[in-house]
Each structure stands twice: as C-alpha cells, then as structure tokens.
C-alpha cells in the first residue's frame, strides 16, 4: 500500500539521520570545561527559569568570548526539568558527562524539591550542588554536606532579616512584642522552609506568628487575605512562586484593603515580573533582593556590550530582561563557578587546564569576595554583598537588600542588611544538619583540616 511504502521510507530516513547524528566526535579536549544546566523554560515558574538561566548562559558566553578561564573554554548543555523532581533526576544523569566524556562540575537545579532529589547523589558522583540563595537551608553547615553550597544566603537568614526590618520599622525589637506577623506561603516544601526559624524568633521576640498556607499554584487567595484583614495582621511575609501567584496576591490584597507597604515578598517571588504582574496594586510593596538588580552593574554592562553586541545573547534581540533580578542572580551564580574554577586552577597548578570535581569543590569552598579588588576583577561591585565561604559556613554573606517597588522599578531602601542575630540562625542550621546526619548515619566532616587560601 502507498502509505506503507511512505512509512517505510520515512523510517529509513529517520534511521539514517539517527546513525549520522550518533557518530559524533568522541575526542576529549584538555582545555575545555563542561557544565550541565538544568533549566526551567516551561510551566508556572518559567519566568524565573528563563531569567536565571539566561543570566548563567550569557555569563558563560561572555567568559568564552573574553578568552575563557585562563584559556580554558566553557561548554555546557541544557536540559528541561519543568520544576519536576523526576525530570531533574533524569536530566542530572543525562547531563553528567558530555559527549566528549568530561564530567560536569556543578549542578544548579531550580527548586527545593529538585535539590532534595539529587542531594544524596552528589557526593558519590563528585558534583557540586551549587545553589545560589535557595535549596536546602541546613546545608549551610558545611561539615554535614561537603558537596552542597548555598551562597550567599538562604531562607532562614532571609526571614530573620525581614523580621529585623519589621522591627526597625516598628521602632525596635521590643516593639514587636504583641504584634502579629502572617506568613502567607505556597503550600510546598519551599513555602514551609522558613517556618522553623520564624517560630523560634516569634517566641523570642514575643510576636504572634500566623501561618497561612495557599494551595499551589496559588491563583486563588481570597480567603487567605480576608483572614489577614480579619486578624489585624501588622506585617505579612509573602512566600510565593510564579508571576501568576504574585499577581493574584497584589490584586487580592488591594481588593481586601490591606496596605501594600506592610507586605514583604521573598527573593524568588519578588522580582520585577512578579510586581509587574500586579500592576498598580503592587506599588509600595517591599521585596528582598539577593543581588542588586539593574543594568548599571559593570558586569551586566559588559555582557550587553560583548555578548548582546555580537548577537549571542540568550534573550535574542530583546534586552529588556537583562539586568532584572532573576537575570542578575543567574549572572552572580555563574560568577561563583568561574571564580571557583580559577581558584582551583591556581591552587592545583592547573592554570589553563581542565579541573576535576574534587578540585572544583575545593575552589568553591574557598570563594572569597570580601576584597574589593576581587569584586572589581569580575565587575560585580555592588551586585553582591562581600561574602566568604569556609568549611563550617557554606553560606557566607547572609546579607540582603530591602527594596521597594515604586511602580516602575525597585528602589533600594536598605543596603546589605543582615538578620538581627546571625548566630542564632547559624546555631539552628547546625542543629538541624547534625540531627539529620545522626538520623541518617552520615559522617560529619572535621573542619580543623581546612586550610585557608588567598590570592597572591
């Protein structure tokens, strides 16, 4: 039959094409370094994913176009995770080694459940789980998870910083006694992450904590905001995800009549896209910045000139999203990788050569952006707070910007502010990590063998 013949020819064509594509070159190159990029470009969180990973890829392109890392060129491969833990595992396994047999150095999936799904595998596979300001909070205590990093902040320091800001606005920590703070969160692991720290601070400071969950995907929030109004809440920390949920929050809050300047959004739900989604209702809302947004960061200017000038930008010809919060976060995350590479190359005498996973981990654990010279080297002065990673502290930094949306852009209200009691948060992280290690029979590393290192 004619259709049979057609199908057979089509099948033969596909088979031939497959055979040709399968015969890719398999030569390993010594001066290349491979990264795997688990992006999210579809689904409810695609706004975050497209911005964040565009930042990472643009920076990697920029490094390649300006001579690589001491001559080492970067290669990468993308895989769509769709904010799904199972797909993340599949992407992790697929992108582990590239076609030339080189293993990836770092894995930076977007999302807490995705991080949890691979956190048990990274040590064995010698891949650094490099989360930039999100992921498993108690991984900040380095001895339990040597291969997991969360620079330069995590959710517990963030919520503590927000509570300190509230205390400052009220006139002091003692004025917080008797006040009510509501935590409106998406009912997932990500939304519940700050609660342990919040509860302890609520007990210490004497304010009432209302925990109000919003079922995912959070496009219906009437009852939650009405409850906020009813209970005479003083401050709301909104922990949402996705522009849809944020937009709904703004409009519902406005319709209920709760003031905008008493709501603080979270870093990963408080970018420009989340505020624009709320329209005029979003004016006056606070949001916390993990990095400084804006095109005026020297590195972002360079990327625009070099990468977008050559037409190789991830956003194509549309540069409106360059310099937004998610984009800048991606750039900062990729800068950490490159600095770790440089440190590892310098320390292990491999300048101009590819490094292994263990060396990369060493480099990452010795990240030090406390000196202005180092920040200026990358052009990230002002983008990130000065921070340093040590064996004990896989977080560093612990400082955020408090920003307020004025209808068009963010205005920085507080510059690089930290929690009121950082030691309390560190203690909580350590306790949680040690408890987990004990329950799961994990060895706890001794940090006394950690040797500091500095650029000469």
């Amino acid at each position, binding site marked *: 039959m004619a259709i049979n013949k057609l199908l057979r020819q089509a099948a033969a064509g596909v088979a031939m094409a497959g055979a040709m594509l399968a015969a890719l070159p398999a030569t390993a190159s010594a001066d290349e370094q491979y990264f795997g990029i688990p992006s999210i470009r*579809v689904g409810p969180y695609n706004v975050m994913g497209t911005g964040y990973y565009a930042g990472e890829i643009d920076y990697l392109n920029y490094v390649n176009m300006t001579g690589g890392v001491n001559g080492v060129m970067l290669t990468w491969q993308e895989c769509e995770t769709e904010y799904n833990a199972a797909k993340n595992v599949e992407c992790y396994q697929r992108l582990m080694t590239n076609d030339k047999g080189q293993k990836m150095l770092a894995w930076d999936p977007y999302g807490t459940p995705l991080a949890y799904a691979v956190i048990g595998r990274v040590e064995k596979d010698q891949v650094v789980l490099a989360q930039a300001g999100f992921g*498993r909070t108690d991984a900040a205590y380095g001895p339990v998870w040597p291969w997991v990093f969360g620079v330069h902040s995590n959710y517990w320091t963030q919520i503590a910083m927000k509570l300190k800001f509230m205390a400052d606005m009220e006139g002091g920590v003692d004025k917080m006694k008797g006040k009510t703070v509501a935590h409106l969160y998406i009912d997932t692991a990500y939304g519940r992450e700050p609660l342990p720290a919040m509860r302890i601070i609520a007990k210490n400071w004497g304010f009432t904590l209302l925990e109000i969950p919003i079922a995912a995907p959070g496009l219906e929030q009437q009852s939650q905001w009405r409850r906020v109004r009813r209970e005479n809440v003083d401050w709301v920390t909104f922990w949402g995800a996705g522009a849809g949920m944020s937009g709904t929050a703004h409009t519902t809050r406005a319709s209920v009549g709760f003031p905008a300047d008493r709501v603080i959004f979270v870093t990963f739900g408080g970018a420009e896209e989340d505020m624009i989604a709320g329209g005029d209702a979003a004016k006056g809302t606070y949001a916390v910045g993990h990095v400084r947004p804006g095109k005026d960061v020297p590195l972002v200017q360079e990327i625009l000139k070099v990468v977008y000038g050559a037409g190789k930008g991830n956003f194509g010809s549309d540069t409106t999203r360059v310099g937004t919060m998610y984009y800048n976060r991606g750039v900062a995350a990729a800068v950490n990788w490159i600095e770790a590479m440089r440190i590892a190359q310098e320390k292990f005498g491999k300048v101009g050569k590819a490094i292994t996973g263990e060396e990369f981990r060493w480099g990452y654990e010795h990240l030090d952006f406390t000196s202005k010279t180092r920040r200026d080297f990358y052009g990230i002065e002002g983008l990130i707070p000065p921070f340093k990673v040590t064996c004990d502290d896989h977080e560093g930094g612990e400082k955020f910007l408090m920003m307020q949306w004025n209808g068009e852009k963010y205005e920085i209200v507080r510059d690089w502010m930290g929690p009121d009691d950082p030691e309390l948060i560190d203690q909580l992280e350590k306790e949680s990590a040690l408890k987990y290690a004990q329950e799961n029979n994990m060895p706890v590393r001794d940090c006394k063998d950690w040797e500091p290192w500095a650029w000469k």
Partner: protein
Amino acid sequence: MIYREAGQFRTSYAQDSRLLPLRQDRIGMAVMLVVAFAVVPFIANDYWLVAILIPWLVLSLVALGQNILMGYAGQLSLGAAGFMAAGAFACYNIILRIEGIPFIAAVLLSGLCAALIGIIFGLTSLRVRGLYLMVATLGSQFFIVWALNKIEWFTNYDPAGVITAQNIVIFGHAFTSPVEKYLVVISIVSVLTLLAKNMARGSVGRGWMAVRDMDVAAEVNGLSLLRTKLQAFAISSFYCGVGGALYTFAYLQTVEPSAFTVHLSFLILFMTLIGGLGTISGAFFGSAFILLIPIFLNVMSHRIFGDAVSASLMSALEHVIFGVMIIVFLIFEPLGLARLWQLTKERLRLWPFRH
C-alpha cells in the same frame, strides 16, 4: 512462518492451560527474562539504569494497576498518583517505625495500606459510573495528597516536608548502587506482572471483564458487584502503592507529596490508553512511550538545533510535538500499542505471505 503453531500439540490439561501456550512465546519470554536479569545489569550504564529503566519499570507497574482498574474492570479512575503517594508514605513510615523490617515486607505492607485506601474510595464506584466516577477518584487524588501534606505525622514532623527515603536493605545488604536497585525493581515487577497476568485470565479477570462489559447482566448472572468492584479497586491500588513505594525508594530517593500531582495521574492514564486498555503488555508499551518520547525529543532537539533556536521555544515545541504525536497515534490506532504488537504477531504468523 515464525509464529507457526503447526506441530505443537497439547496432550494434557496442564499444557492446555499454560500461561504461554506457544513455544515461540515461551522462548521469547525466557530470552527477555535472561536479558533483563543477566545481561542488562552488566552492559547498561548508570544513566540508562537510573533515568530510563527503573522509572520505566516502576511506572509500568503503576500503569498495570491502572489497567486492571480501567481496562479490565472498566472503572474510570484518575487516582493513580494518590495511591502511589499513599504507598510511598506508608513504606517510609513502616520502615521508620518498625525496626528491622525487611524491605520486601515493607513494600507489600505499604501496598496493602494503599489497597485499603483504594477500597474506601472505591465505594463510590458502587453508586456512580463512567465520568462521574473519574471525578470522584480525582477527588481521592487531591484528598490523599492534601492529607499527607497536612498531617505532619506522615512526614515525621520534618520542617521542609521533603524527606529523604531510607536505603533499601534486604537481608542486611544495602541496595544502593543503580544496578542493585534495578535488580530489586525488576524482581518485584516481574513477580507482580506474572500475578496480574494470571489474575487477568482467571475467574477474577473474567469477573472484571463482565462488570466492564455490562454490569447489570453480570449482576443478574450472580456476580456480586460490590465484591468485584472493590476487589478491582483494592488490587489496582495495591499495584499503585507498590509502584509508589518503588518510585520513591528506587528512583527519586525523596518522599514528598508534591511528586504525586494530578499531572502524574494523567500521565498514568495516558500510559494505559496509549499502551492499550485491557492488556498486560500495554502497560509496559505505554509507559515506555510516555516516558521515553519526551527524553528522545529533548535529546534530538538539542542535537539537531543546538544553539540555533531559542531554548525556551524548543522546550515549548517539545511539548507541542509530543501532544501531536499522541493525537496522531490515537487516530491511527485507538486500541493502543498492544494492539499494534498483536497485529505484528498476526503478520508474523503468515509471513512471508501477506494474507
């Protein structure tokens, strides 16, 4: 010529009632089992084991459960992921709270827990039918996941709600490497598939098919609808529960309610539909189709287009292409991949002749 039955005589009742009456089928099955148990563990690399084979086998088991309920018993259901979640959390809690229980026993017990929950939600099938039952089982999906989220006892009061699954320990040996996990999964899946095949062709299966085809006639003939329908729900939920336990322990390594969304329920529904309703092999075919085609599309699009097309457009296109493939496939063969396999076997009987 390949599938000739000529010369194969059955001389006893035992031979007549064999599971695989044709010698070619028996040889084929033996070869497949030898390859699965003895060849694949040695030649497959980590990616194939962890990302392809283990999820395919586990989801085939769940699709088998769904097939029992939808294909054989005719009860439309959308609660597969909910029962998976029930099984997964049951397994986690059993291993957590009962010291030293063998993993296989924990998995079977968790299947029984899921079966009990399946019976409770299956009671709705005695009053409603068809699409209404589908909506009721959708309710079970949401309720189970909500309950696991809300009642903190299930997650052992973990603050993040995402718990790492314990290691699989059988007879004191921890099965942690991909090959070992694959062997555990393939053993459990092959045993349960054999049981399902026997149930399907026995009186149990005939009861289900009678209920599916015309339940009033079945009831008139003396078949207890209550027992048959609840039995179908129980056995289907058992399979889904065991599948859920294996999904978390052998694949994801994290136990969290948000991995068992309604999206997963729909995926399992599509697996049974595309694989072939009312067949055992259909579960495996459909699971392979739904799992592997998106990966294939992702790999191919990166190979063919690379950086030429924007990655966001490509990711969206992959979904579009996948959806179109499903539609086209169902238009050409609505009875699914199992029917295609059956037609192939028929052709092989006559080959090299056309008819």
